[in-house]
């Protein structure tokens, strides 16, 4: 099955809010071997002016990949998850993510480009609080390998 070119320009609305927990930030920080105290200790985070423990710079991938899942699981997309390779990633932070945040992500399919038997898909997750404040923009390029690649 090939990638549906009509995906380009499609938007998937924000789903259920993602509640950022203190233990999740600690768990994620440990998983990327990030040792900064502000990821673990609320007092160390407060010294830097943060309301609670602060997420590592790539934490937003959790929220972005949940948004991407809407596209990958969309039966109209034609994407076989087992053939997806992460090609590039960018995070732009409008403000830090801290424990206690409630985040939602609206997904935009910015580009679909045929490549060999597969396709390169660029998505943009606009991450905001449930109150509507912009938090981060995560842009991902996913290479869906063709059957012969």
């Amino acid at each position, binding site marked *: 099955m090939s990638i549906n070119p009509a995906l380009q320009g499609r938007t998937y609305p924000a789903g259920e809010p993602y509640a950022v927990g203190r233990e*999740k930030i600690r*768990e*994620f920080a*440990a*998983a*990327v*071997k*990030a*040792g*900064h105290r*502000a*990821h673990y200790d609320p007092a160390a985070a407060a010294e*830097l002016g*943060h309301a609670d423990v*602060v*997420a*590592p*710079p*790539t934490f937003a*991938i*959790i929220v972005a*990949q*949940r948004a991407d899942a809407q596209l990958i699981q969309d039966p109209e997309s034609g994407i076989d*998850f*087992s*053939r*997806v*390779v*992460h*090609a*590039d*990633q*960018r*995070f*732009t*932070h409008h403000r*830090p993510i801290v424990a206690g945040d409630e985040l939602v992500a609206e997904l935009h399919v910015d580009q679909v480009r045929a490549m060999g038997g597969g396709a390169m898909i660029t998505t943009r997750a606009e991450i905001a609080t449930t109150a509507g404040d912009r938090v981060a923009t995560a*842009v991902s390029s996913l290479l869906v390998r063709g059957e012969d*690649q």
Partner: protein
Amino acid sequence: MPAFPFESLEKGQSIGATTVRVNRADLVRYAGASGDFNPIHWNQRFAGEVGLPGVIAHGMFTMGAAVQLVSDWAGDPAAVIDYQTRFTKPVVVEDPAGSNPSEYAGTEIGVEGTIGALDAEARTARVDLTVTVEGQKVLVKAQALVQF
């Protein structure tokens, strides 16, 4: 915001270097923490069947681990306001016969950072990261923007 003055920085200046090690247990931990359970990151048979040289690290593990150098240099992880990379070469994580999966030293990832650009108006420093395994780049155009 970093504790040292923006004015003290120079383009081309090193921010230091570090190494990060990754074994299969680390990949299982990252899968759980991130929610990315793609079996290419934990199942040898499946990785081989889809044409990979073996189980590979999540690109996001490598990206996430590499930026630690910048967080520590800046003194505040939230000073990293923009971070991007291209994933060019998979980081293969071996599972040698007889090794203890959680104690095996794993694959060594080298991380070096230099200041690639300074924007005096925005008061940002762009740190360019060189991320390698056995001398070969695994991330390309890995750039972190630090707000002062």
